[in-house]
């Protein structure tokens, strides 16, 4: 593309860019700015100071990170083998598997979240089966704790990990794996030295996406966590709609945004080193 074509293209995109900036970026900048500007006082850092003095909000942020990390890990542990298994399927079975993975996308998040209660609740299918089979006396507490939140988030976010991973995996030429085998590599070496590195960019991108989505999760932790798993978005809701301390909420949001951007920057850096 030469320079002229590029600038013509920009002409077409410009209205969209303006819309993005006005409708999307400006309100965010305004929200983030709230933490630094006080009515009539100008620039201030007091809301960040307030955060440091009341570390409970930072602890909620830390808790959110921890839960997001656990849920992301669970997602990877389930999603990677799943995507790999799908790669080995015949065409028709593969289509069915993809449909099953994507299906949750089309179901409302509330419905999905409540259906977990039907499945994993005290009187749910799993517990009834366990008690019927005599494996347990008392119902197992799957829900209303971190386990419930992790299961719920893993379920909701699985497609975000599996689809890019699967796309990367089916792009891997079988002959690469055959070449590695012919060069004397045992299956384990083929996986770790050839297959896994080739899926790593997609895995990293999917993991990052899932982690960042986890950070902002609201409904699932509130319902499946039984309110026992404090997450930053629930706290932000309180600070915006209940108390309200928009300045404090803005300061927390800023920290959340910065953390997300840092993670993203680290990923970009890794990605660039890997592709050189």
């Amino acid at each position, binding site marked *: 593309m030469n320079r002229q074509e590029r600038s013509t293209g920009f002409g077409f995109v410009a209205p969209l860019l303006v819309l993005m900036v006005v409708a999307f970026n400006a309100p965010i900048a305004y929200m983030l700015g709230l933490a630094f500007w006080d009515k009539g006082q100008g620039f201030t850092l007091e809301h960040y100071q307030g955060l440091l003095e009341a570390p409970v909000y930072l602890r909620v942020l830390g808790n959110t990170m921890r839960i997001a990390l656990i849920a992301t890990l669970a997602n990877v542990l389930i999603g990677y083998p799943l995507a790999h298994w799908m790669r080995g399927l015949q065409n028709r079975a593969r289509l069915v598997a993809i449909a099953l993975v994507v299906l949750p996308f089309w179901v409302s998040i509330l419905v999905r979240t409540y259906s977990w209660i039907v499945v994993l609740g005290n009187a749910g299918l799993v517990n009834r089966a366990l008690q019927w089979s005599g494996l347990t006396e008392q119902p197992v507490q799957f829900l209303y704790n971190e386990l419930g939140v992790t299961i719920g988030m893993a379920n909701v976010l699985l497609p975000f990990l599996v689809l890019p991973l699967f796309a990367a995996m089916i792009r891997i030429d079988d*002959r690469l794996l055959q*070449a590695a085998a*012919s*060069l*004397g590599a045992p299956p384990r070496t083929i996986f770790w*030295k050839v297959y896994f590195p*080739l899926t790593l960019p997609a895995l990293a991108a999917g993991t990052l996406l899932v982690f960042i989505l986890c950070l902002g999760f609201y409904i699932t932790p509130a319902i499946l966590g039984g309110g026992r798993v404090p997450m930053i978005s629930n706290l932000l809701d309180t600070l915006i709609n209940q108390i309200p301390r928009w300045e404090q909420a803005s300061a927390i949001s800023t920290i959340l945004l910065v953390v997300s951007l840092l993670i993203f920057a680290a990923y970009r850096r890794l990605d660039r080193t*890997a592709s050189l």
Partner: protein
Amino acid sequence: MSDIRLEGVSKRYGPVAAADDVDLAVAQGEFVTILGPSGSGKTTLLSLIAGLNRPTAGRIFIGGRDVTDAPAQERNIGLVFQSYALFPHMTVLENVLFPLGVRKIGGAVARSQALDALKLVRLEGLEDRRPSQLSGGQQQRVALARAIVFKPDILLLDEPLGALDRKLREELQVELKQLQRTLGVTTILVTHDQEEALSLSDRIMVLDKGRTQQVAAPAEAYLKPANRFVAEFLGIANFVGLEDGRTGLVRPERVRIGAIGTAAKTARVVEAIYLGQMVRYHLALENGAAGAPMVAAVPFVGRAFATGERVAVSWEAADIWPV
């Protein structure tokens, strides 16, 4: 002593036999080419030898050892694919180091071996490039270096030059032949390109529909094909009727052309094609089997016959091979 031996090897996919009762013995250091049209089962045969696939019947021996059920990892075979199959996430050097690392060879020893292999395929100075930064020919050389660096007992080449343009292909053919001779490694090449097969190999094996048609030295297979399929697949075949009712093969180089009157048979020139040192004439015979086509390839010396001109055609009885 034969280095590779196939005994009654078959590979069936349902009712289809990709390899059907194939026998083959390849001697130590020999260069054998498996030649056949696409779908003839030649790549299947190669993957059976490499251990990427298991035969449904028959045995495979390498160096006297029965490897029929041994996985690819245990066969110590260097394999080169048409698609190169280089590891895209590794540099050239890392690709070549890979089989050494698998064999627990590391450090300076591995490095110098790898650099030697790269030198052998004339790729010095490109160690740190990624495969995507190389041309097709360069990538195939890397694949070759990777396949020979660990001193395999056998080198298997699956249409290694198929993706390259003609000039590069011819260059690499010469290099490949020299390399094979230098290393003295037993080599099996799979190709559908009969010129490549004839110019590179000690012997060729012609395959059709999974069955062996002929195993012979290139000249023998060319001049004395075992059957009509081999005759037609290897170059251009003229078939002539023999007195005893059989059909005989005359290769175009063995057909002589002269001015009318120099021989009993006559023909009309349908097309004259200049090939540098040679001229190829497409002829239509006039007497005997009237109108039957014939191709003659003769050295170009000063004058050529023009299209539509009548010529005298002859061949020696010794140049006829009954098929």
